[in-house]
């Protein structure tokens, strides 16, 4: 473990949404670290809270969201305590984001040059310098003929190109942390490979940290150094990618890996699935949140919610079975 402090450190984060049906506990005691210059993946099925998690980092939550505990420390400062103005200073500059849907993420009535220059509004550079920077970044991400293309509008680019532009915009300010929210989900497999490759190359060049959210396990294996597994608003396991994928300590992770179509070696008629559904988060069950679907549950699981237990170097799982296995 490196002695340098983590770039991003989330401790015990809990968040609820106020809905007419009651408080929906979207995040419960989430722990997560992103060290400097590392790529961390966040995986989980739809509805597990990954998007809510990263929305909370940038504090872009809807009005009915309420943080009920914990801290999000970025370079030591708790983001939850910052004034809106200070938070705005960070956004786009120190923490940047790439979104899932390249079709709609860019403003359709402004040229991309306009948008890329706008994003630099805080820099004291001249307009020409900003323009050059934009052209430079577009070239970096592989947009052909960037100087001409500055005048073009988003709808004149293909989906893959638009995502590259989004990445260019995000990295233009050389942020310390890049958050990518399922950036390749809307793209086909070939494009996905290209974008992942691009991110890897850029990360090497810029040295930023990347927090990569996805439900595609193969991408995590390829791109990330560490992985965080989420289920129903909780982090159930985390650690170095190889360790977690080879020796999953949490039953959910094991099942998730088993279901991944890329890993199936036996021919069979049916794809394996995890039976059951995500529990109702307005009134989550007592005890472990995964118990209703867990094939290895026992009596204690119903009564007591498990704490996070270390199981190996850097790997930990929130499971009673993991207790006592760590060093």
């Amino acid at each position, binding site marked *: 473990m490196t002695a340098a402090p983590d770039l991003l450190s989330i401790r015990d984060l809990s968040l609820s*949404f106020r*809905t*007419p049906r009651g408080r929906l506990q*979207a995040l419960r005691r989430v722990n997560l670290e992103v060290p400097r210059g590392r790529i961390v993946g966040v995986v989980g099925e739809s509805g597990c809270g990954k*998007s809510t998690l990263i*929305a909370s980092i940038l504090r*872009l*939550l*809807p009005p*009915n969201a309420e943080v009920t505990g914990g801290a999000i420390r970025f370079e030591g400062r708790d983001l939850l305590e910052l004034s809106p103005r200070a938070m705005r200073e960070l956004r786009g500059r120190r923490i940047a984001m790439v979104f899932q849907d390249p079709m709609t993420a860019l403003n359709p009535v402004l040229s991309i040059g306009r948008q890329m220059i706008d994003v630099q509004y805080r820099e004291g550079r001249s307009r020409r310098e900003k323009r050059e920077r934009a052209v430079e970044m577009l070239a970096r991400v592989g947009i052909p003929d960037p100087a001409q293309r500055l005048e073009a509008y988003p709808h004149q680019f293909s989906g893959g190109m638009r995502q590259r532009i989004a990445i260019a915009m995000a990295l233009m300010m050389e942020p310390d942390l890049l958050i990518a929210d399922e950036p390749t989900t809307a793209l086909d497999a070939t494009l996905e490979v290209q974008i992942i490759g691009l991110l890897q190359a850029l990360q090497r060049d810029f040295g930023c940290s990347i927090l990569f959210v996805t439900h595609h396990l193969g991408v995590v294996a390829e791109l990330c150094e560490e992985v965080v597994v989420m289920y129903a608003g909780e982090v159930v396991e985390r650690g170095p990618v190889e360790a977690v994928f080879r020796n999953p300590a949490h039953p959910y992770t094991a099942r998730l890996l088993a279901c991944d179509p890329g890993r199936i070696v036996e021919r069979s008629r049916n794809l394996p699935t995890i039976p059951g559904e995500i529990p109702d988060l307005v009134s989550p069950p007592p005890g472990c949140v995964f118990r209703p679907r867990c094939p290895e549950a026992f009596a204690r699981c119903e009564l007591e919610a498990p704490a996070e237990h270390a199981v190996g170097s850097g790997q930990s799982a929130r499971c009673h079975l993991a207790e006592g296995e760590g060093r």
Partner: protein
Amino acid sequence: MAADEIPVAPRRADGFLAGLRRLTRDGMGLFGLVAVLLVVLSAVFAHQLAPFDPTRIMVGPRLAPPSAEHWLGTDQLGRDVFSRVLVGGQVALQVALASIAAAVSIGLGLGLLAGLGPRWLDNAILLLFDTVRSFPVVIFGLAVVTVLGPSLTTVIFVVVVTSIPTYGRVARTQTLAIKNNEFILAERAMGAGTGRILRVHVLPNIIGPLLILASMDVPVVITIEAGLSFLGMGVQPPTPSWGSILNDGFSYIRNTPWPVIAGGIPLILTTLAFTFLGEALRDTFDPKLRRDL
């Protein structure tokens, strides 16, 4: 983030009464409902409620302000304005009822035709709808008056023609939507004729939106009738109409404001009431109909 905001979809009216209850919880809807009921009642029983014969002249001094005897004062011929207002309301609602009924029927027919017929017919009818709907009503009204002369019939004609597109469009949309529905194709495969399909599938789906539209159309119709009557082109004297009461009052506006106020307030209140009610109905039962024009 938009993705994580837990949307709460409005629960579809599980029954008319449930919807009614929801309607009354909204301030505007409640006001609309109550006011509309009042208006309708006073219109239906206008002759019974009126203290004087609305066409009888000199039942009081001319242009008198409101008093205990004449609640809304008298007009320039000494007629009791309150009685005229009541009967004027009856006229307005009669016109509304008749013309909307006619417009709905014809609109329904044309809409069905457009939806089921050949493409060119659909385009032609649609074009007709769009033009008629947005053409200035008053200009059209004046043109018709030139030909037919001023009368109640003229007004009804104008109102019917300008209302048809509203209903026609909805009928057409629903027809088109259902026409290509899979279970319709299945029924056709089993030999069901167009008539049956219309009756069983298309019509029930259309009735709801049409009714809501009709309730929102009432204030428009009342306005057109009052407007044309104000210009002297509509309901002819001595039959009172809110428009003609306003017209009479307008000639004497510098002498006394009361006839103008008396003629205008019921008109404004009624249009507001129906509009509020219509909006509330639409929001409760079918938000999809929301168009901002």
